């Protein structure tokens, strides 16, 4: 089901944990759907010096969290913003179709943490939209049957 990379990031998650007094914290997802991702960012001079995550969710949720943190660590805010869910998926050698939403969640978690950072510091980050609410997010795996 999962690629070796996914399994590696699930079994040995990078950057798991919390950051006290983080510059920005983002939480996305919803326990109803079975995934919540929380991202902590430590930002200095526009650079992500440290990043941690906590995730409640399936193997793909953990692995995409782990990979997303790896991809933004040490990057500028602008670079971090360009880390899309596709980039996360590619870095993990792909995800099963039913798990693609996890990578979307990882992208959104990073964005949410950046948004929180921006809010706290009264700055505006170009191209960053406010976090969306995931209450009505659906997992539809049916395809062209009807």
């Amino acid at each position: 089901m999962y690629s070796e990379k996914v399994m590696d990031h699930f079994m040995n998650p990078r950057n798991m944990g919390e950051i006290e007094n983080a510059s920005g914290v983002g939480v996305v997802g919803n326990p109803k759907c079975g995934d919540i991702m929380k991202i902590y960012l430590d930002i200095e001079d526009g650079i992500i010096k440290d990043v941690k995550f906590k995730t409640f969710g399936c193997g793909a949720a953990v692995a995409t969290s782990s990979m997303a943190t790896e991809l933004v660590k040490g990057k500028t805010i602008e670079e971090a913003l360009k880390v899309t869910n596709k980039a996360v998926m590619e870095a993990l050698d792909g995800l099963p179709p039913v798990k693609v939403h996890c990578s979307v969640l990882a992208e959104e978690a990073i964005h949410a943490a950046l948004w929180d950072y921006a809010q706290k510091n009264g700055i505006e980050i170009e191209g960053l939209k406010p976090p969306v609410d995931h209450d009505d997010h659906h997992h539809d795996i049916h395809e062209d049957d009807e």
Partner: protein
Amino acid sequence: MHKIYFDHAATTSTRKEVVDIMLPYFTESFGNPSSVYEIARKNKQAVDEARQKTADLLGADFNEIYFTSGGTESDNWAIKGVAESYKSKGNHIITSAIEHHAVLHTCQYLESKGYEVTYLPVDEYGQVNPEDVRKAIKDTTILISIMYANNEIGTIQPIEEIGRIAKERGVLFHTDAVQAMGHIPIDVKKANVDLLSFSGHKFHGPKGIGALYIRKGVRIKPLLHGGAQERNRRAGTENVPGIVGLAAALELAIRDMEENNKKMLELRDYIIRGITERIEHVKLNGHPTKRLPNNINFTFDFIEGESLLLLLDSKGIYCSSGSACTSGSLDPSHVLLAIGLPHERAHGSLRITLGDENTKEEADYLLEVLPSVVQRLRDMSPLYEEFKRKNK
């Protein structure tokens, strides 16, 4: 590394003895039972013997056993076939909220065709109240379908009582006995059922073969149209090795049931106690006593089931979270929701289903590994972080 299979409700291996019995029907005795010549007649006889054996094991008659491709087909056939046959009498079907998808999705399909379906609730242990069944019956009710035992939480339903009510009111009663068959004693007459589904691979028989008991006198439209097999009711060349294997596996399962169940009950309760003692914030799902002897189902707060399965897998332990058959969906188990678990707790369930080959050593290994695995996921969980903060 240990390799421990704790997912016998998902499927079981086919017993070696059963495979040996099946083998000649692949290569030597391969004739089509519908043909008239010698090698085919032998196969017709093999199918007849399997039918008689199966009937005897259930307290049914030879002509009341129909072979299908599995539990799903049996459930679909029973419900759609009866619904179609009796639609001049009424369009109302009663079932429960915790049925397998083979029943639920079939009922939903019938709703889209103009049937009315009542989904009875269950109590916190997953039991249907027979009085609820009685109250739900209307003039238009043509079928009640309540499973014998649940595949996720193992709860056994009061089938005899429901059957008695159905009989009193002249309504047909189908039960999905896929999880019960070969695991607890079943007699179709005592159970007061009119139709009963089961599937070979749940009791060490082969996959892709099942059966439907149809009481004499019950009208049912075919689901598969075609040749005249199965007395004109279920078309398709007979899966002779499968049929022979199903009957042989059922015979062995029932022969060894008492002994196996004694062993599994002990192991089951040992594991339940062990988990409850070793891990905080857990809850046993299902009925404490009216449950299948091989079923254990726990909710672990703050964590998600698939992650738990993957970590256990990495330790060589194979379990399931919710029904394996429903893993294509990302929704939490409808069974756990029906017994009142909130979504996030429903996501965090672990099902351990035992087989006769499981040992106390394996149970001990599980009990050794599980606490640290659960802790590891909790340490990763933002829900647990929040819980700890609130309870500091």
